[in-house]
């Protein structure tokens, strides 16, 4: 059986589109790796301040922690978005019309983004109200940033799918966006996990700022103990 192979070529570089797609996939993976470090930095900051409770100023005034439900709704929105984009990509790659599914993804991510902004503006505390307030604000700003990026990318993907640029022969851009949306969903989920499970600090006896506790020299025993300001 002879088959005439007509491999679609990239108009810019003249290579087969699958070759370009592999290259782009590596690029997106690397971007995600870099983004992971950034998100981890935010999570470290949150957990660190939570564990230390410096100057007893972790909790917001009147212990008014944020409502956990909103975090999980936003996280769910991120996960649904990622799932929809994957589904849309699969549909397009199989030759179907995925525009409707991808458009639905735009609506979901837009709604999630708006919810995130609403949550940010209705927190029962201000960003200046101590460690928890600052760290939670930035977890949510990070989530909003990820959502806005995904939103922009999905809108582009919908437009390109409608124009026929993303099609069964060359569906790869939808896949790249799906990859990124998946990571964004994971990042938002981790943020929600931290912000809802780590509220009251475990360190209840942090020393007041600028004062020495009267500890006899013999009592301060191990180097590990001097690591925490409670010693």
């Amino acid at each position: 059986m002879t088959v005439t192979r007509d491999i679609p070529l990239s108009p810019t570089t003249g290579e087969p589109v699958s070759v370009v797609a592999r290259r782009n996939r590596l690029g997106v993976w690397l971007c995600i790796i870099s983004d992971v470090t950034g998100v981890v930095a935010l999570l470290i900051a949150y957990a660190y301040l939570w564990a230390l409770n410096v100057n007893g100023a972790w909790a917001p005034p009147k212990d008014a922690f944020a409502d956990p439900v909103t975090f999980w709704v936003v996280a769910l929105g991120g996960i649904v978005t990622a799932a929809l984009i994957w589904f849309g990509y699969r549909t397009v790659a199989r030759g179907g019309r995925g525009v409707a599914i991808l458009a639905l993804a735009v609506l979901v991510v837009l709604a999630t983004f708006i919810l995130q902004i609403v949550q940010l503006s209705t927190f029962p505390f201000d960003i200046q109200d101590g460690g928890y307030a600052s760290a939670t604000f930035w977890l949510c700003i990070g989530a909003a940033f990820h959502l806005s990026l995904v939103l922009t990318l999905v809108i582009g993907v919908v437009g390109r799918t409608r124009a026929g640029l993303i099609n069964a022969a060359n569906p790869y851009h939808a896949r790249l966006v799906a990859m990124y949306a998946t990571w964004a969903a994971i990042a938002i989920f981790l943020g929600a996990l931290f912000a809802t499970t780590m509220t009251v600090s475990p360190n209840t006896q942090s020393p007041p700022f600028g004062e020495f506790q009267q500890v006899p020299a013999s009592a301060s025993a191990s180097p590990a103990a001097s690591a925490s300001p409670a010693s």
Partner: protein
Amino acid sequence: MSTVDQRPLADPEQPEEPTNRPAPRDRFREWIARPYARRIVILTVILTLLIVPVAFLVLHFMNLSGGPASPVMYEIEKTMFVFTVVSAPLMAVTLAILLYSLVGWGRVKAKGLEPPMQESPAIRGNSTATVLWISATSVLAFFLVVWGITELATITAYSYGSTAADQQPNSQKAVVVNVTGQQWVWTFEYPDEQGITSPTLVVPVNRPVYFNVTSLDVVHNFWAVELGIKIDANPGAVTNTGVTPTKLGTFNIRCAELCGLHHAYMETTVKVVTPEEYQAWVREMGGKRMA
């Protein structure tokens, strides 16, 4: 562009050919008989002998202002000395090869824009040299790690990080000093002496001193130079260190962490005095709060 290499690859199916490698001792004899090898070895020895005295120079510079004034500082200087001595051969062999390479193995120059195209031996790897180098650097690194960990444990014990004050070899009661850094002064408070405070540190000789350190504004670093102790003064946290001064005299305390405008001037002195003088000083300061 390099051309296609048409040499046949070794056939893994065939048994390995005997290599007729001579015994290591004979190989060493053959190697050392080469003129360049002999000269590099001699050069390495000479350079090592030249570099080792640097260790004494290091001690000289570290002691210019009157140290070591405590066992901690003594241990630090011992470490500096040992590290310098053990790394001297490594530095010497590198330098020897670099120097010998420029004079012993020949040099060429370009004529105009023509590359000289000299001929050098195609040495691709040498397992003996590789194994020797990696073992030497690894042994050195592990020696330094073991030495460092032992020394750290020693000075930590001296500084009361891990040994409580009443279990110290000389079990006198420790002097506790609360050190507060703020822009750009140090304040020393003696909680066990009715909380007297002083802008300079006065401590008795041969008695452990225990420091609680904090800061009221930015990060400072409490550095008692000749006593060999150093710890950050962090706002919002208390850090600890300690030392037993063993030498009478007046020494330096500096701030070793950039703390703003007058960081350079954030220095004071530590006076190590006899127990009698210390008691007299405490009596003199007692009741008069200077804060």
